[in-house]
């Protein structure tokens, strides 16, 4: 194909290189298109904001909000009610951690933090506020942003927004419970 006698380009060698170049570009282009087409541009996935119900109807303690894959905590103290929300997706490899705080079988020692959540897949353990206690989880469970929906007063969990611990408490006054549009 190529002219070995001299380095002068001939018509034959030029056409040969041209053919190789065009063929190569076409092959690379098709390969790129094939791979790129598998990276989705539009995701038909559920919203990251999930309504968790009216604050007044959420029981005290820990409640799983399934659609958000998150636990909502409610603590009522007089006029004030505190909410915070924590992801239920294990930071290790994404299993759903299970609430085990109710189990009283293990004695609570003073120097050991109490286990609130355990992961069934690889045994990570988290305290009630999501800090890693034991197991392979590399990070604490993130706290998620909470808000009250302006249209119907439901508690809204935003799984796309992580918030700092202790700053995420939503103090909610029960006297304003009836402010809702129907």
């Amino acid at each position, binding site marked *: 194909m190529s002219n070995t006698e001299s380095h002068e380009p001939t018509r034959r060698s030029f056409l040969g290189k041209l053919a190789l170049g065009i063929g190569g570009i076409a092959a690379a282009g098709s390969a790129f298109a094939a791979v790129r087409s*598998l*990276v*989705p541009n539009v*995701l038909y*996935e*559920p919203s990251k904001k999930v309504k968790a119900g009216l604050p007044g109807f959420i029981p005290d303690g820990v409640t*799983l909000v*399934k659609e958000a*894959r998150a636990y909502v905590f409610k603590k009522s103290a007089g006029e004030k009610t505190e909410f915070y929300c924590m992801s239920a997706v294990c930071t*290790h*490899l*994404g*299993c*759903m951690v*299970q*609430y*085990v705080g109710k189990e009283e*079988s293990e004695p609570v020692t003073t120097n050991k933090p109490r286990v609130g959540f*355990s*992961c*069934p*897949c*690889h*045994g990570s*353990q988290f305290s009630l506020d999501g800090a890693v206690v034991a*197991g*392979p*989880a*590399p*990070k604490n469970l993130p706290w998620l942003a909470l808000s009250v929906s302006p249209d119907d007063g439901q508690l809204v969990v935003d799984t796309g927004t992580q918030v700092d611990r202790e700053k995420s408490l939503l103090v909610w006054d029960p006297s304003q419970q009836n402010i809702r549009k129907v």
Partner: protein
Amino acid sequence: MGSFTAEHQKGLAMDESLRGRRLFWSYLPESARESSESVVRNFLLHVFPAYVTEKGISLFSTFWLGTITWVLFLILTVSGIILMFLYVPSVERAYQSMKDLEFVVSYGSIIRSIHRLAAHGMVATAFLHLVRVWYTKSYKSSPAQGGIREVNWLIGIVLFVLTLALSYSGYLLPWDQLAYWAVVIGANVAQSSPFIGDTLREVLIGGTQIGQNTLIRFYILHCVALPIVIALVGAYHMWRIRRDGGLAVTERLVSEHSAEKVIPSPTKTYTLLGVKEGTTLSVKSSLLPDASLTRSNPDLLLRLIIAILITHAIVLGFALLVKAPLEAPANAWSPPNPAKAPWYFLWLQELIADTTFRVGSFVVNGGFVGGILIPTVALVVLAIWPFVDRSPDQAIGVWFHRSRWIQNIVFTGGALTVIALIIVGAFLRGPFWKFYWFGEPWPKIPPLF
């Protein structure tokens, strides 16, 4: 079939030149010449050499593990195609079609069980095949023989990884609890790889959440992409056996036989045992004395047919006894407790659960260490081992050669570690992946949701 003997006698009387025209003549050769011609003229037989060594086809040289792996792949292909007619790869209907297979389709549960058991068996025989190659030093060629068996070792490792990928993508398809949580963990292991993790996960599951995109991707991988790749690479794997001059045990016979009288010839490259490049021995019908040789047809052929039939019979027998399990439908809110992978991934699951390490505030996820780093290092060590193995060429084709005792112990240690991790994962891990000794009762943990 009654006229078979008559056909034969007719064949004997036939003109020599007409023999080749008979439809089934090659399967019952009557002479050495006819036997040799059969492998040249018959499409199915042409993959064989005309002659093989007695040693090469004896059971204790190889235990036929590679062949059995290939037979299991055939069984998987056939049963898999049948299952494709009966399975719908949609999140809504996948689990229902599994239920139909189990309870509605005639013999559906048996076909599914065959497919599952053959898949488990293929992982096991592929691993045992690798073990056999290690202990017999079949991953090396002596330079005098002109083969490069190291290449086939590398291809074999690729095939082993492909086999695991096929198994993984296969058990996702029922879309039960095992399937769903395996995807969750697999996708997050991929995500834990550095730099490309997020993209890798997105491409793998077709989005940020597991759903229909994920299922159809793994379906295509399992039914189309991976089988085609494994068939092509597997064919090359088998071709290379002849390219490298036959099995290692044959090479040993050749080098023992011709140790003194080798006269390298600059041009001749063919023997009937295999095709080689470079300066090898001069062309003869064989490099070996006739006493050590046997005809591929029928001796190898018959054994191959027996291997196919017995492998199938064993798989079918087990399939009648052991039903393929089906867990509850995929539940995105509640993993099984404990959630366990199939046995061939349990050692990885155990590693993943144990290998997160912290140095101060610096944390590396066990998903990366146990799920990617350690397996990759293990594969790389396996891959380069033949190139650093300095044991003498006399060890090639010999079980547990004296000169290799140290490396055999190292390898056995590695294999036993994997097996020990599998046992720990299978029997000693209870709810929340806590450690329970054999026989220690597990606490009853009610499913919360």
